[in-house]
């Protein structure tokens, strides 16, 4: 019983071997910290290019079409900003929760509920003046988004129920709820049976920039970014959120009320996403309709991590991702599936995560198993 181990050669001795080792760098050099995201984005594009090539498209052509579509014309740029608006709001929303390691991946549902509540106000009180109606819709959107996030927040705070799954499941519920309304009781009788409500009265329309489709919602997004940034870095609440996110045990030790913060942060997170939904119905569609968000809530998760939860970074990344979305639609005209944009989103995050981690580590080729002094090593990069 004890001998079997012994027979596995006492000396697997002294044969020099090379092995690859991944080790932690003591500290990340400024150069790599700056280079990592850039290199990662390039890698993601190369990866996507190989994928395009393999499926029979010319990657250079597709990329140049995408770039032109998103940034190459006035129309493209405006559309990029239009798409960036809900992404920005939703991302600011989820990033607050992520700071506390609360995985709110239910921004999609919160957007739908925000859109629903704002639409309800707009359709119920069409005669109110804009100065009353728009703030009312804003509040309704925020409250509905917040309450929708409260549903998973309470079981998480009380019993520790995994919020990843509950927030995600509620996305489906919210989408079916809006579908029920637009296919059923709220359907526009004059809408040729399309799944949409009647148009809101003009009082419910958000003002636009000139003749473009860029609406006031953009201001909401930028204001939210500034407010959240100040809240996190300067206030006591923000400090609590940072401590809880980094080390819940220390937070408890310091007397912080974690369940209360879970509830409050989820409320805030959902409310900001809800405002994104309000912005879409009040600023773009002017009615509630099927598919009001094509996945802004999911894109928000990626943008938040790409920007490392930094509000200023989120603003920039939101515009890039708005562009990516527009680019996806642009290449669709040429028969290339718009899903290329979703795929690139996923691989972007994938490569940025990898790149960031690689900057923390270094890969070394190490010669092992030889006697004294013979340990040599070569550093790759």
């Amino acid at each position, binding site marked *: *019983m*004890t*001998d*079997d*181990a*012994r*027979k*596995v*050669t*006492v*000396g*697997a*001795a*002294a*044969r020099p071997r090379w092995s690859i080792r991944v080790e*932690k*760098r*003591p500290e990340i050099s400024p150069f790599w910290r700056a280079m990592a995201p850039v290199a990662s984005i390039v890698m993601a594009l190369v990866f996507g290019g190989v994928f395009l090539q393999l499926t029979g498209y010319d990657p250079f052509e597709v990329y140049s079409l995408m770039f032109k579509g998103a940034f190459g014309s006035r129309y493209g740029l405006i559309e990029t900003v239009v798409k960036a608006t809900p992404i920005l709001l939703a991302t600011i929303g989820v990033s607050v929760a992520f700071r506390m390691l609360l995985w709110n991946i239910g921004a999609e549902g919160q957007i739908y509920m925000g859109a629903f509540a704002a639409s309800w106000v707009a359709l119920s009180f069409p005669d109110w003046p804009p100065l009353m109606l728009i703030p009312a819709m804003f509040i309704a959107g925020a409250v509905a988004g917040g309450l929708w996030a409260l549903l998973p927040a309470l079981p998480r705070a009380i019993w520790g129920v995994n919020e990843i799954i509950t927030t995600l499941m509620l996305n489906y519920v919210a989408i079916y709820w809006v579908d029920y309304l637009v296919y059923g009781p709220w359907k526009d009788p004059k809408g040729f049976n399309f799944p949409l409500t009647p148009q809101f009265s003009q009082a419910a329309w958000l003002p636009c920039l000139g003749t473009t489709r860029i609406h006031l919602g953009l201001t909401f997004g930028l204001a939210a970014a500034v407010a959240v940034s100040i809240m996190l870095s*300067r*206030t*006591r*609440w923000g*400090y609590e959120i*940072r*401590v809880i996110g*980094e*080390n819940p*045990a*220390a937070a*408890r*030790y*310091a*007397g*912080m*009320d974690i369940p209360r913060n879970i509830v409050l942060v989820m409320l805030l997170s959902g409310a900001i996403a809800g405002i994104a939904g309000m912005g879409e119905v009040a600023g773009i569609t002017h009615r509630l309709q099927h598919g009001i968000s094509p996945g802004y809530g999911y894109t928000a998760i990626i943008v938040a991590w790409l920007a490392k939860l930094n509000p200023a970074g989120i603003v920039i990344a939101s515009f890039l991702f708005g562009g990516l979305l527009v680019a996806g639609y642009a290449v669709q005209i040429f028969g290339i599936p718009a899903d290329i944009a979703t795929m690139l989103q996923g691989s972007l995050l994938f490569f940025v995560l990898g790149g960031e981690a690689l900057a923390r580590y270094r890969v070394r080729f190490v010669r*092992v*198993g030889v*006697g*004294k*002094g013979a*340990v040599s090593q070569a550093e790759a990069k």
Partner: protein
Amino acid sequence: MLSGSSTGVSVDAGAGTAAAAAANAGVDADADAAYVVEMRDITKRFPGVLANDRISFQVRAGEVHALLGENGAGKSTLMNILSGLYRPDGGEILVRGRRVHLGSPRHAIAAGIGMVHQHFRLVQSFTVAQNVTLGMSKPRFVLNMRAIEDDVARLSSSYGLQTDPRAKIWQLSVGEQQRVEIVKMLYRGADVLILDEPTAVLTPQEARDLFTTLNRMKQAGRSIIFITHKLDEVMEVADRVTVLRDGRAIATLDRKDATPGLLASLMVGREVGGAVPGKKAACGDCVLRISSVSALGDRGTLSLRSVSLEVAAGEIVGIAGVAGNGQRELAEVITGLRRVQEGRILLRGADITNRTPLEIIRCGVGHIPEDRLGTGMVPNLSIVDNVILKSYRSRPVARGPFIHAKAAREHADNLVRRFQVKAAGLDRPIRLLSGGNSQKLLLAREISANPGLLVAVHPTRGLDIGAAEAIHHVLIEQRNRGVAILLISEDLEELAALADRVAVMFAGRVMGVLRRDEWDIERIGLMMAGSATADTGHGADKGDRVS
């Protein structure tokens, strides 16, 4: 265990193959043949640290070889290399005269080297037998647990190591878990057994049992490497001792050539000053009064049983006991981190039973938690952010809902200066500080709130002697200023040096309280093992004694 060996012990089956292996290797010198293990010029670097600097070290067959050194001297690193966990950056290892490459623990075990780590490597949710068979290569696929359980029972009883092979690890006491670790290594045929600070978790009596077992294994021809920083253990159990300091081997001595004083100066490299600041004035009023408190542990079983204790102003009350006997839970109920099931806790007469941690902090209770980086600090946040962990709610750090950055910075700067914390900058994350410096900062933060009561749990564990002395001085200074201090420690020397009274805990009870003038290591040891109580218990609940 070779025939040429002077100890001339019996050769068991496992050692037979080893001897054959050594013979095949064509060992040249007789002197070398006596060494089971020989490490030559071992060097190991970690980022920023040279942990082992050309260390050479030899172990003979059938000896207990102590590896003595302070924390951070490189003992554990050296043994982690010998057990295959780390790879050396330079040097070579010979087992029975043959050069080996110990690329993994599996290689080490195949070469007959097994290590019992300070933190046991046991899977809590597995049974003893499952843990023993874990990682072996036979049987290859289908497991017949019944047969393995029988083997384990037979092997452990042959060395007097009582264990139930079907028990789950989490149900066992720390001492029993250690036995499982030893059985695990014996089961694999290890004839070189490395024990990393094995007595740290044992009562003095349990430690003596362990030494008996070690002697029995020595008689059977096995070699034991015994890592320790305690001089008396070296004198009691070792045949030879190698002293490490700052990553280098300083000397190897036979026990008969060693004296505690010589070993101490080799280990520390300077004169050992054990002087503790003198006794202060008489104790003041009672600050903390715990009466008949019971509480549940993490697993839902009673881990504090009707504990009663008092701490007066200007007094250090030590809590002695083997880890896991309710000390952590005691600290947690006082600081509001754990619910009290029964009983009351009074702070200067005010009831703080089951108040929130925040309310208790506001009552002036400071806390140095057991896991300082995991609980007491936020490793990724800056020094400034860590220093305001408890003061961010009130002026001057708080300004309405905002945090006043300048005030926070000044506060941090003050503490860093006053307590001589070595830090590269106030905005650097706390995880970059050394253990001693982060502990100093934590203590500084807790003291800066002017607490009436300080609960300190293992405040010097893992620190080097310099840092530990600094912490001790601060604790004494605070006591002299009238702070009531509850000091939980596993280090009896520390308690002997600091505590005005010592309460001994066992199985969630206070077994007794001894005044400084009643200090008796033998009696404390018996109480730690649950087999005696103090006659003169000051705070012990009379009805609760073990008869």
